[in-house]
């Protein structure tokens, strides 16, 4: 097995072009486990840990450009203001050790339907982009086009993830995850939710309840419609139990889960509806408080 250790991003791209089957390794919290379980026998490993720019982030006030290897622990400490949904999701990942090593680039690279970053990224809006690069150039892949199948993403063989571009939150965001124990657990299912008052949209993300992470499109459209028609963005008035209930049902309907060792399909649907109702309620309560205090 080759072990490639590029010192710069350009060297990394060149290496990936030369060895398209090389397996990138960042935090290694997925890669090393899978090698240990003999899932992978890569011909080469491409170690990204010498490329320090991957562990940096910038914020221009409207968009955060999050380096692929910024570990979850730093997302929690440094970015819970601009990226509250992602920071909440980061909080639920594994254990302190895993959060010190693992990051969003690795979560996207693995593209597991159970990855916790995905629902938060989807909920953060349609303007989330994965910055993918190769010797051929850079592509900005919309998050909605990134996940293409179970543990498959839309990266080309010669591409690497450099960063993720995520709009700075302009409203409350939440993330909830179900596990069968109280810590260190892979999601049975998860849900991300965000209010985007600036453009009058809402964002959703469903984890572990379909072959890929996905958005609850009808639920988003329904809620956007209600908020616009009733002038709720402006008034911040109560949503009412019926709206919350309906939103939950639509989120549930958007999932296509299976029965597996972690949980049943029925339970996943049920709990998604509960999480959808709760996260909507929390976000809306925060939002109306903001509106009222501004008034």
């Amino acid at each position: 097995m080759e072990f490639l250790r590029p010192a710069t991003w350009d060297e990394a791209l060149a290496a990936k072009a030369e060895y398209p089957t090389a397996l990138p390794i960042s935090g290694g919290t997925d890669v090393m486990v899978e090698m240990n379980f003999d899932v992978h026998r890569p011909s080469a490993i491409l170690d990204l840990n010498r490329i320090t720019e991957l562990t940096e982030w910038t914020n221009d006030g409207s968009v955060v450009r999050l380096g692929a290897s910024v570990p979850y622990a730093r997302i929690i400490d440094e970015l819970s203001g601009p990226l509250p949904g992602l920071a909440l999701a980061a909080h639920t990942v594994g254990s302190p050790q895993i959060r010190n090593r693992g990051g969003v680039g690795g979560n996207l690279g693995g593209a597991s339907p159970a990855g916790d970053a995905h629902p938060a990224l989807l909920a953060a809006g349609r303007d989330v982009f994965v910055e993918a690069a190769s010797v051929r150039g850079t592509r900005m892949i919309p998050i909605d086009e990134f996940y293409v199948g179970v543990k498959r993403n839309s990266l080309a063989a010669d591409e690497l993830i450099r960063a993720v571009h995520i709009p700075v939150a302009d409203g409350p965001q939440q993330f909830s995850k179900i596990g069968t124990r109280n810590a260190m657990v892979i999601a049975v299912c998860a849900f991300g939710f965000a209010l985007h008052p600036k453009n009058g949209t809402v964002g959703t993300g469903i984890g572990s309840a379909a072959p890929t992470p996905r958005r609850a499109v009808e639920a988003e459209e329904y809620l956007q419609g209600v908020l616009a028609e009733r002038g709720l963005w402006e008034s911040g008035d109560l949503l009412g139990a019926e709206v919350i209930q309906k939103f939950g049902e639509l989120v549930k309907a958007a999932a296509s889960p299976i029965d597996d060792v972690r949980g049943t399909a029925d339970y996943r649907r049920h709990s998604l509806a509960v999480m959808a109702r709760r996260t909507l309620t929390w976000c809306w309560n925060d939002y109306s408080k903001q509106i009222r205090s501004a008034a």
Partner: protein
Amino acid sequence: MSTRTIQGQKNLQNINQASKDGIGGSPLRPDGNLKVKGEFAYSSDMWHEDMLWGMALRSPHPRANILSVDISEALKVPGVYAVLTHEDIPGSKYYGLEIQDQPALAIDKVRYHGEAIALVAADHPETARRAVKKIKVEYEVLTPIVTEEQCLDPETHGYVHEPHEYKSHGYGNICHEQKLVSGLGVTDEVRALADVIVSGDYEVGMQDQAFLGPESGLAVPAEDGGIDLYIATQWLHVDRQQMAPVLDLPEEKVRLTLAGVGGAFGGREDLSMQIHACLLAQHTGKPVKIVYSRDESFFGHVHRHPAKMHYEHGATRDGKLVFADCRIVLDGGAYASASPAVVGNAASLGHGPYVIPNVKMHAIALYSNNPSCGAMRGFGAVQAAFGYETQMDRLAAALGMDPVELRQLNAMAEGDFMPTGQQIDSPAPVAELLQRVKDMPLPPPLDTEHLDVRQIPGALSNTSHGEGIVRGVGYSVGIKNVGFSEGFDDYSTARVRLEVIGGEPVAMVHTAMAEVGQGGVTVHAQIARTELGVEQVTIHPANTEVGSAGSTSASRQTYMTGGAVKLAAEAVKRALIEKGRRRYGWTHHDITLVGGKVVSESAGPLVSMVDLLGDEAIDLTREHHHRPTVPFDKETGQGFGHVQYTFCANRAVVDVDVELGLVKVVELTAVQDVGKALNPLSVVGQIQGGCTQALGLAVMEEIIVRDGKVRNASFTDYLIPTILDTPPIPVEILELPDPHAPYGLRGVGEAPTVSATPSIVAAIRNATGLALNRIPVRPEHLTTERPGEL
């Protein structure tokens, strides 16, 4: 050994620090700091110059005929030294704890998913792994026999073992069976005596011991043609007894030394890689190390028997039990392992610590193509306790009684009779334990004003900000036997040596006891200090140079090997005093050993041990046998079958998110009678550990098997409690001495594992109103099940 080796020479060093702590003190464990710092040498850390790595090829099918095994490609891999199948076994091809029904390597058929078929030894684990993949096995895959219905209808579904192969007393696909009848049994006339009858069907999933140190060991061929095996096990001598015939060696040429054990809980009572490593070492003439990976470990040891149970209880209007009837079906999987003993415990303890005038019981263990099940902490008693304790709550509800009072009303006490006819002849404070656990202060209610997410079920994953959470409280009590039962003489041996080293009297304790983390070596040193009046004690590494210490299981080691250390130390003490009498002509009758001196209670110090011993060492070995027991009668279950009983009562307080089905155990209180706490700190640790393992069974731990295949052989999906799942566990200890036991002590380790699970499920029922007849309780059970009748 002359060559360079790593075997964990440091593991016992800290015990050599002088201490004044005799029994009743709480000196710290020698392995504690080392383990926390990562310096403890586990069996998987061993290394030997020139050693090879062994690896097994395992069956992907739960049931198949093996048509052919082609090892030729594997042998061609550079770095491979040997590829072995059952044909290469020099001696007997079968082994087993109680029944020798398991082939060391599969012969013509496989009976469970993960059964070992062939072995490879290579110069590197990666080479071995590659070679294993090159072994070609042609299978004729058969439909596995996995359900109770399939097992009990062999005419239609076939036999796991052909009837002519049976080595047990079983028949059909039944590995072992035990019936029990007492009083009038349970007939329609008896039923008519009850005012209220409750019945229920209960199910217990397959729990795993989930020890953190995977199976591992190092086999070193010796010049005399024998083998030295360094091994993490629970019982050195029974390993040897099973290994020697397969290796075709006399027992004395199979020498075992205990290596650092990373947890056991019953899962190391059976052999795993022992024979395999030795066969490869014999064949190659080189040291061979085998270390299982985590997933292989899930296939490499037996699990807790899953159980299906039917219970029926009848009582008078005022709550007195009239009868109890029970049928327990345990799935023993492909090979017998400890199934007979598990059945014996389930049958004899399966009605709980209650006085019941009329009893019927039928317990069986099946042979199936599921993973083999055997010993795990509290076996037989754990499964049954979930059944009978649920029944007690149901009965209390049906009678409109307080569940604790109902239990107390029927609680057994010293002098009462077990359904086996055995009289309880030492304290059995069942009602008192319940009272004490009930009287302990309750934790404060959930503080919804200042929510701490760590206190809420699921809230570290942000599932609730206080919504949907309901508190529940549940109680339970359980009974477990201590030591091996049904006529088994599981004696222990101890050697104690007293000599002067560096101007101080030093005692050395040598046993074959497997220290698996229970703190046995600490207790041995305490016993030696108490009996011999010395501060310096060293512990000899456990090995087969001394006689058997029996198994580190059945809560028996402090009782049995601790008892042997006591006997040997007392013998050394007598010999020393006798030496003094001969030398000095003492006539005192009140001589004892204190503070390194021989002391007469009336006349004061007589002589220092240093002076009395001089250059001489006193070195004596003693065996400790518990009082004899007898097998249970096959049909009536009657007999003095158990050595000692132990009881624990629990109260669980849980918060349940009733909308999401998530559970957080808020507090798990335990009150247990331990006879005498030789090391109170260790005792509390055992009780808390036992409670935590019980919590795992209550709400998360299960090996999921579908059509005979294990679906979650990893710690990603086999979940054990984390620190955030483990609540405060207040423990109250009673010390009511058992006159038959050394120091009056009672085995500690298993009782809380038996009793705590039902209290947690009772608390969840209390919060949700659901029936919950199956454990582990999973979130989907709490959100889809209809409220049951309680």
